[in-house]
C-alpha cells in the first residue's frame, strides 16, 4: 500500500457517508434512525453524514422488510454503491419480517436479497442501539477498506 493510498483510506475512514433507505416498514425505525442525526444523538461525532445518493455512500442502513415491488429497487441501490460497502439492517421487520411475517404481501427479510453485516434488533430499536450497530459496521468496513486494493 502506497503512502497516498494510506492517506486516502485514513480520510475515508473518518468521513463515511451513510445512505438511509426505508423499505416496506412502518416508519417507526425510520424516525428513530433519523433521530440519530439530530442533536441528542448526533452521529456526526463519528464523521458520518447522511447522503441521498447511493453512488457517494459507504454504509447502507435499511428499515423494514422488502415486498415484491421494492425488491429490484433495493438490489439496484445496493449495486450502485461503490466498493467497499457495509449494510446495517435496523429493526425486527428487516431481520425477520416482525409481526407481519404471515401477511400476504410481505416478501422477504433483507438478508435474502442483499448481504447484511450488522443486525440491530428491536421494534423499534432505540437510537443508541442503532448508533452502536453503525459503529460496529464501520469496524467491518474498515477491514474491507484495508483489504481493498
Amino acid at each position: 500500500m502506497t503512502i497516498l493510498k494510506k492517506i486516502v483510506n485514513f480520510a475515508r475512514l473518518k468521513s463515511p457517508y451513510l445512505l438511509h433507505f426505508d423499505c416496506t416498514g412502518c416508519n417507526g425505525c425510520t424516525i428513530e434512525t433519523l433521530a440519530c442525526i439530530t442533536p441528542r444523538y448526533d452521529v456526526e461525532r463519528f464523521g458520518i453524514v447522511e447522503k441521498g445518493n447511493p453512488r457517494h455512500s459507504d454504509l447502507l442502513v435499511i428499515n423494514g422488510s422488502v415486498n415484491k415491488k421494492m425488491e429490484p429497487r433495493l438490489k439496484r441501490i445496493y449495486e450502485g454503491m461503490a466498493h467497499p460497502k457495509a449494510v446495517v439492517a435496523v429493526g425486527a421487520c428487516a431481520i425477520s419480517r416482525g409481526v407481519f411475517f404471515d401477511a400476504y404481501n410481505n416478501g422477504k427479510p433483507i438478508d435474502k436479497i442483499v448481504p447484511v453485516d450488522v443486525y440491530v434488533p428491536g421494534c423499534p430499536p432505540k437510537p443508541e442501539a442503532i448508533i452502536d450497530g453503525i459503529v460496529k459496521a464501520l469496524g467491518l468496513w474498515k477491514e474491507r477498506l484495508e483489504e481493498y486494493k
Partner: protein
Amino acid sequence: MSTRIPVGPQHPALIEPEHLDVKVDGETITDVDVHLGYIHRGIEGLMQKKNYQQNVYIAERICGICSGVHTSTYSEGVESLLGLEVPKRAKYIRTIILELERLHSHYLWLGLVAYEIGLDTAFQISWRDREIVLDLLEKITGNRINYAMNTIGGVRRGITKEMQKETLQGIDALWEKTKYYKEVFLKDSIVRARTKNVGVLKKRDAERYSVAGPIVRASSVDFDVRTTNYAAYADVKWKPIVRHGCDINSRLDVRIEEVFEALNIIRQCIENMPEGPLKTIVPPVVPKGETIMRTEAPRGELFYYIRSNGTAMPERVKIRPPTYANLLALKPMLIGSELADLPVIVASIDPCFSCAERVGVIKEGTNKKEIFDGRRLRMMKDAP
C-alpha cells in the same frame, strides 16, 4: 415541450419510498402522477387472520408515528361492538397519549418542512425539542415509539403522581419553546418567502377532494373529528384551529396553534385526572355486528370499520388513514408550481405512506398499470 422527471422511490427529498412521475414545462409542473405500492404489506388481510387481542399489536405497527391513535381507534371500535363502558381514568390517559403523540408528530413535521425549505438549523432545533416529548412518552409508557398503552377495555399502565409532575414541567418547557417557533416560522422573511402562496389548495378543491386534518383546516374548512367527543375530549376545553390562507404558511400556523392546544389539553387532563380502575373486564366473545370509529390523528381523520361474525377473529377490518385522503390533493397543489417547491409541497401534507398503502396489484414481468373500477371490483367480489 414537456419533460418527465421521476422522483423516488429513493430520493434525497423523500423520507419514505413513493414514486412521483412529474411532467414539467421548463420549471413549471404541468402534471403529476403518484405511484404507490412500495410499502403495501397486506395489513387488512392479516387482521382477518388474527384474533381481536392480537390485532391491537398489528394496528400499532401500521404506522410508527401515529401508533397510539391507531390502537385507540381500533380498541374503541371493538369496545363499541362489545358495548363496554371504559373507565374514566382510562379515557383521560388515552387523551394524554393521543395529545403527546400529536405534539411529537407536529414537531417532527415542523422539522421536516424546515429541512425541505433549507433551514437546517430549525430542523435540528425542532427535533431536539421533540426529544422532550419522547422522554415523557418513555417515562409514561416505557417506549419511545409503539407505546403499547391501549388495550381493549382500557389502558395498560397508569400515570403516577411523580410522572404527572414531570409531565407538567415538560409541558411548561415546551410552551416556551413553541413560542419561539411561532416567531421563526410565521415572522421570518425567508420562511414566509418560501411558504406564502406556495402549494395553494382552495376551499372548493379541499372540499371536492375530501381532504382531512390540518390541511383542510388551513383551507378555511372547520372540520375536526375531536368534536365528536371520543376519549375525554368532551371534558376538556379546546377549540379547532381554522385558518384562511390556503397555503403552506397557514398550514404551519394551524399546526403551531394545535401544539398550544395540545399542551392545554394535556394540562387539563392531568389536573382533572379522576381516580379509579384502568381497565374493565372484557367478555371473551365479540357478538355479531359492525361498527365504525372515527378519530383525529395528527394528520387528519382516521376511520376504522370493523365487522364481527361472532368468531374469535374479525370478518373485516377496513382502515382509511388521513394520508389516503390527502394524497389526491397533491395534484391541484403541485400543478402550476415550480419544480423547486415540490419537496416542500409534498412534505406540507405530512404524507405517511405506510398508513396509506391499502391495495397493490403487482404483475410480474409486465409494466402495465391496472385500474379497478366499481364494476370490476363487484365482479371480483362475486367470483368464488
